[in-house]
């Protein structure tokens, strides 16, 4: 076992706190932006922060201490029990692509809103009400 893997397993609790903590922090910062900020672009940034937080959470959940990347390459054909869980990684790839599409769509809507209203303040967009 190499030196750095020992160090990782030694600091495993700290690592967990860092990964999960930053994921939760990202989600909370994003939520704050979505709920409090008034600028349309900041809302979109908030949404994409939330997405990143959830993605980080997914990758963190799939991690197994001292295990390697889930790739079957020459010399590693029988190493399945030494690999981290590949499913969350596949899910995150999909979620990243979807998040990208949503962000692009949102930004294009922001541009269109700005052209019509000449403002990016969400409080001044109130033509549609209950």
């Amino acid at each position, binding site marked *: 076992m190499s030196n750095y893997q020992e160090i990782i397993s030694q600091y495993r609790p700290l690592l967990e706190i860092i990964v999960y903590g930053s994921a939760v922090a990202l989600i909370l910062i994003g939520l704050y932006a979505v709920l409090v900020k008034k600028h349309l672009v900041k809302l979109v940034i908030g*949404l994409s922060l939330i997405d990143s937080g959830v993605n980080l959470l997914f990758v963190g*959940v799939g991690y197994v201490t001292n295990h390697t990347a889930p790739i079957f390459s020459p010399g590693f054909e029988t190493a399945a029990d030494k690999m981290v869980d590949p499913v969350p990684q596949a899910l995150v790839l999909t979620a990243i692509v979807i998040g990208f599409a*949503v962000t692009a*769509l949102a930004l294009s809507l922001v541009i*269109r809103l700005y052209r019509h209203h000449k403002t990016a303040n969400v409080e001044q967009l109130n*033509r549609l009400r*209950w």
Partner: protein
Amino acid sequence: MVVSPVHLIAAPLAAAFLIPLLNKLYRDAARVVPGVVFLYNLSVSWILVNRVFRSGPIVEVIAGWKPPFGINLVMTPFSAVLVMLVSFMAFVIWLYGFRFKRSLKGGVVMYYEILQMMMAAGSLGIILTGDLFNMFVFVEITGITAIALTAFYRDRDGAEAGFKYMLLGSMASVFLLLGILLIYTQTGSLNMAQIAERMPAVATGVKVTALIFLLISLGTEAEMFPLNGWAPDAYSQAPSPTSAAFAAVLGVAAIYALARVGFTLYDHGTVSGFLIAMGFLTMLFAEMAAITQTNLKRMLAYSSMGQMGLAMIAFGIGSEAALFGALFLIINHAIIKSLLFMTGSYFIYNLNDKRLRALNGIHKRLPYVSFLFALGALAIVGFPPFSGFWSKFYILTAAGAKQMMPLIIGILAVTVIEMTYYLRVIGRIYFAKEESEPASHKPSIQALVAMTSLAVLIIVLGLYPDLIAGFLHRASMFLLDKQTYIQTVLHLS
């Protein structure tokens, strides 16, 4: 013909991406191709529905990965009924919108057709998939296309409605992901059958948290109060065929996803009270809001929410009879609300005014369309000769069998509100004095065929509900039978 459930999703997706190329070869390809694809889908789903009802559920293994690994499509009698409904409605809505924006040249119509097809493909995917994450992907496909269609007209209200929908939709998708993550950490699986099998062993706290996340996200899509702020704006700003598709395609898929989570992933008892309470609140709030509306399409949108609320109540009651009523209601709602949006948008097209006030005396100018609108309005309220009567009747009977008197009184009271505003619109159309100038846009022949066939369906189902009752009974029985679902998917021979 060799068919499988995959074709239902693959055909519209492939065609949607091929349309830009085909459009270069033939000018009207964008208008014709969706019809061909939807007709193909309709025949495939007809064959598959027959097969499902004759010889049991179909489990489609994709790329050779047997469940619980890989992605699999499951076509149970319950999903088969809804697949048939969505395929049929997608075809009728295409027919109705065949001459959509005839005057506009270029790619505009192409984008509309592509998005409509993707929305149908995504909705069919939600209904067919047996994999939780795959469901998330299809929810996102329908969500993104629905947002793009909401903002289809490049005016300020369209963009605003689209942005609102996008904010709520992406929050919903975050919650869906979190719910899936929690379930995956606890059960180690994404296959719905395997999750259902392992769910009883999961700690209650985690289970309930995941359920709340799933209900928040799917409730947003299914227009559950108070997460339905997007719906009236999206319905009223989208092009008219799209409003019909929101009710008949998107809504069906959303309520299916809610039912699948409530009945298969979880035990029905866990969600029963919640669904009844939220369904009733949704219904009450929606009909109260509908009666104050001055805009025709917004009024129809709120009425749509009310129907979704009633469907949630029926799923919440959860007896076999109630599920039968819920399925009947979903079918009725898809058919009748589409008819109302189709006829209503011809009023708007002629008057250039979405306000109810402008409808005064329009029956003189559009007699046939007015007749169809009145028929649809009476049907959705539940007057006896029409199909809408049976769904309300069966749901109320089911509630009666479970001794839920307050619920019955509540539903009837809300129905009175519903009746008030629909009759008011009919009154305006037929008995108010005419104010504005003569009609300039007669309905196209395709639109007339589409609207007439829906109206005929309403009357036929109203007079002979037994035509579909047998199918619906077996479908609702199968939804209740969780063990068979698990066995069929997990123990493929």
